[in-house]
């Protein structure tokens, strides 16, 4: 695999500029077609019936009255799917409940009807006989041996005795000797931190349009972060061959990890199969909140020791994440990332993956890491302040750098944490004066970043323009980045390249748009595809000139003789070579397929000023600055956008967002009215500082940037609020009632 081709420091012509995105006009005129924006002839409307109980055995479902309603064309329950392969069993059970409904909002049946009104009516005619069971939604309660059990007999061998069967697995990471380290400390902070469950909160609800014919061929249009994943998962569930199912990704109205799994798609396909007509399904906002992936809520014990000069002698954390109704919370990611920013001799994390009667957690931007960082960075802040040490200096003193053995095992190559801390220290924000009831917080964050299976095909048209086909939905400007990298590599102007997102029939397997992988991995494949096309074009020029193809090089968008021995020939531009492609062997293309492993990790440091109203506990964000290593910022405006968006999602998580369950296990706030994501008037501008410490694993040095920005904010804001309020905040969200109670408790105590 050709990953070790990192070019020496180079100057870029296109990369690093801020051209208009290719899909810009579609998106500002309303022409862009998102998940719900498509129709098909004869289309039916699909709707889902959802459990009103947090935990119930489904004794019987009687759909006969619904089927008899005029206009109803198909009704589906879990029974229609039959047995499915083991690796998708939980997936289909989450899309359509089997023996038990495991959370409020769990799908139990679906209909396809001639109109939305008929579909609505049909749902009411479905009789479900539920045997209501005791439920549990809190992570600590779910771990107790006497907690109601969701799944019996599925516990991994890694879980010790004494826990409920809801504890699905246990992981442990670290090195050194915690007790020895703690003994060396001048002070030890030991606290429990809790975070509420938050939702990714994309503005576009899940939507799809499925068409399946009696010949077994199917077409699916949907908003997803990965249409290849949708294809593979749906094919497995429906017992189809992957090649028979063509999935086209619509424009996607946000995902943040929440659209890396299927919810409606297999159901729509089954409805279409049974009805023999296209079926469109669109979730309502309340369905999105009740039944699609939120994050884990967590409970984390931290114990950190520090010497009075600020050296961390030991770090321990026990992390308990509930991942909703099925195993697979990101507690392993949290456990691996918790102490990743620090060079520690003694470090240990233990993680428990717990199931509860809540919707199955889906990935959310650096899944698992923000909560762990919240706990660890809060404790470090408390220690630093206790010794009256500068919190940035303390972090610098302990910062991981090249050669540090990471808390999760490997030795770091060149990384950018110190650079972000130094930039933070030098920034005017750090020394700006603060007023009464105001506080400043800082925190660091880490994310792994991924690569994965990736295909890119680059075609040269007869008139010398270039089209790039990639297989990853463009969630925030990636078409622009790919276009830029192709133009850069080919040495042609940006506007001579057009990038499209191809459907599953057009390219090979592509990993989901996740793990901050796209600019890294698809970018790498785009560059390599361009290099292959260049090689071909050099060959064509060599044919024309009658010289060896090795004697031709590609410079500034044209083939040239590589040296004096190659003879004197005028350069042939891409356009000139394209024009004679038919005469020199046929169309010119470059393609590249790779499992792009070796992504570079990423670090960031956030700084925030807040003001807390001591009479109401309300927090106002006054100033916010993000410092992050981007490796190489391909389109800096969209890099800044990732930093800003991640920070603001973090602000929501820190201050107001949370899933609120009643005693009855029913979600109380399934709407944007009471699931309170930040609005424009809540916020200041979000300043950004992009650091560029090249990733040796990418030809241009690119690192993923999308996820890291959500890791530090929870702790940075908690540290700022704690300073402003004069009391250490350990539970998120720091909603006004919680902050006011803490302030009053402090006064009382």
């Amino acid at each position: 695999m050709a990953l070790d081709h990192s070019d020496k420091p180079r100057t870029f012509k296109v990369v690093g500029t801020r051209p208009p995105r290719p899909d810009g006009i579609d998106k500002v005129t309303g022409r862009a077609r998102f998940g719900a924006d498509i129709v098909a002839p004869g289309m039916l409307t699909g709707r889902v019936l959802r459990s009103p109980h947090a935990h119930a055995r489904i004794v019987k479902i009687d759909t006969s009255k619904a089927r008899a309603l005029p206009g109803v064309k198909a009704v589906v329950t879990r029974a229609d799917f039959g047995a499915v392969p083991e690796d998708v069993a939980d997936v289909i059970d989450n899309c359509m409940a089997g023996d038990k409904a495991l959370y409020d909002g769990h799908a139990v049946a679906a209909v396809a009807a001639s109109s939305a009104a008929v579909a609505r009516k049909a749902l009411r005619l479905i009789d479900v006989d539920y045997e209501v069971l005791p439920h549990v939604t809190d992570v600590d309660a779910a771990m107790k041996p006497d907690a109601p059990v969701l799944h019996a007999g599925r516990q991994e061998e890694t879980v010790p005795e004494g826990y409920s069967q809801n504890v699905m697995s246990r992981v442990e990471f670290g090195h050194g000797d915690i007790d020895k380290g703690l003994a060396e400390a001048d002070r030890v902070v030991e606290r429990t931190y809790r975070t509420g469950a938050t939702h990714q909160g994309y503005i576009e609800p899940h939507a799809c349009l499925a068409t399946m014919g009696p010949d077994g061929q199917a077409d699916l249009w949907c908003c997803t972060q990965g249409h290849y994943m949708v294809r593979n998962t749906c094919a497995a569930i429906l017992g189809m061959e992957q090649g028979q199912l063509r999935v086209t990704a619509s424009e996607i109205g946000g995902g943040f990890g929440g659209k890396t799994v299927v919810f409606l798609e297999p159901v729509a396909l089954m409805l279409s199969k049974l009805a023999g007509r296209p079926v469109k399904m669109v979730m309502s906002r309340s369905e999105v909140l009740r039944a699609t992936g939120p994050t884990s809520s967590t409970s984390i014990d931290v114990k950190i020791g520090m010497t009075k000069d600020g050296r961390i002698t030991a770090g321990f954390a026990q992390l308990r994440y509930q991942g909703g109704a099925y195993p697979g919370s990101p507690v392993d990611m949290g456990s691996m990332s918790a102490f990743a920013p620090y060079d520690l001799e003694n470090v240990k994390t233990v993680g428990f993956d717990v199931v509860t009667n809540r919707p199955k957690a889906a990935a959310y931007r650096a899944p698992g890491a923000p909560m762990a960082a919240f706990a660890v960075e809060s404790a470090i802040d408390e220690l630093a302040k206790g010794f009256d040490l500068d919190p940035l200096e303390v972090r610098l003193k302990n910062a991981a750098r090249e050669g540090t053995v990471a808390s999760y095992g490997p030795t770091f190559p060149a990384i950018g944490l110190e650079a972000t801390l130094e930039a933070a220290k030098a920034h005017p924000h750090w020394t700006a004066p603060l007023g009464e009831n105001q506080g400043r917080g800082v925190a660091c964050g880490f994310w792994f970043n991924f690569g994965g299976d990736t295909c890119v095909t680059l075609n040269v048209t007869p008139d010398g323009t270039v089209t790039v086909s990639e297989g990853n939905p463009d969630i925030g400007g990636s078409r622009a980045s790919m276009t830029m990298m192709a133009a850069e590599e080919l040495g042609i102007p940006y506007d001579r390249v057009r990038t499209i997102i191809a459907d599953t029939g057009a390219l090979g397997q592509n990993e989901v748009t996740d793990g901050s992988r796209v600019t890294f991995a698809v970018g790498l494949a785009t560059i390599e595809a361009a290099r292959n096309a260049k090689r071909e074009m050099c060959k064509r020029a060599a044919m024309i000139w009658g010289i060896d193809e090795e004697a031709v090089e590609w410079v500034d968008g044209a083939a040239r003789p590589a040296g004096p021995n190659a003879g004197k020939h005028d350069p042939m531009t891409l356009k000139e070579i394209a024009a004679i492609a038919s005469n020199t062997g046929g169309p010119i293309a470059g393609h590249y397929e790779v499992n792009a492993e070796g992504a570079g990790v990423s670090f960031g440091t956030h700084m925030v000023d807040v003001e807390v109203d001591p009479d109401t506990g309300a927090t106002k964000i006054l100033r916010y600055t993000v410092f992050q290593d981007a490796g190489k910022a391909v389109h800096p405006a969209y890099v800044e956008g990732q930093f800003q968006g991640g920070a603001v999602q973090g602000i929501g998580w820190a201050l107001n967002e949370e899933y609120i369950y009643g005693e009855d296990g029913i979600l109380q706030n399934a709407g944007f009215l009471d699931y309170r994501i930040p609005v424009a008037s809540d916020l200041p501008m979000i300043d950004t500082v992009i650091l560029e410490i090249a990733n040796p694993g990418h030809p241009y040095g690119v690192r993923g940037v999308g996820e890291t920005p959500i890791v530090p904010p929870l702790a940075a804001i908690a540290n700022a609020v704690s300073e402003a309020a004069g009391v250490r905040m350990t539970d998120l969200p720091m909603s006004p009632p919680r902050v006011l109670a803490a302030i009053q408790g402090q006064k009382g105590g």
Partner: protein
Amino acid sequence: MVKVRVWGSLAEFTEGQTEVEIKATTLRELLDGLAGEYPGLRPQLERGISVAIDGRVYNDSWFTPISEESEVVLLRRLKGG
């Protein structure tokens, strides 16, 4: 022989060792070697793991070369958002 570091909770299945030695020149040989020497690791290997080789993370590329000097660390399978 390649030295392989395993994470804490896997040590239970490697006779308490957090570092084991496996004869391997590629990732595939490494995984096969681990499963052969330490059958207790098999459930975890089947669930999927990531491997850091000299600080870079690999998931599936069997023929990624590993040298005796390589730093090899088993990781939980990484997933992103």
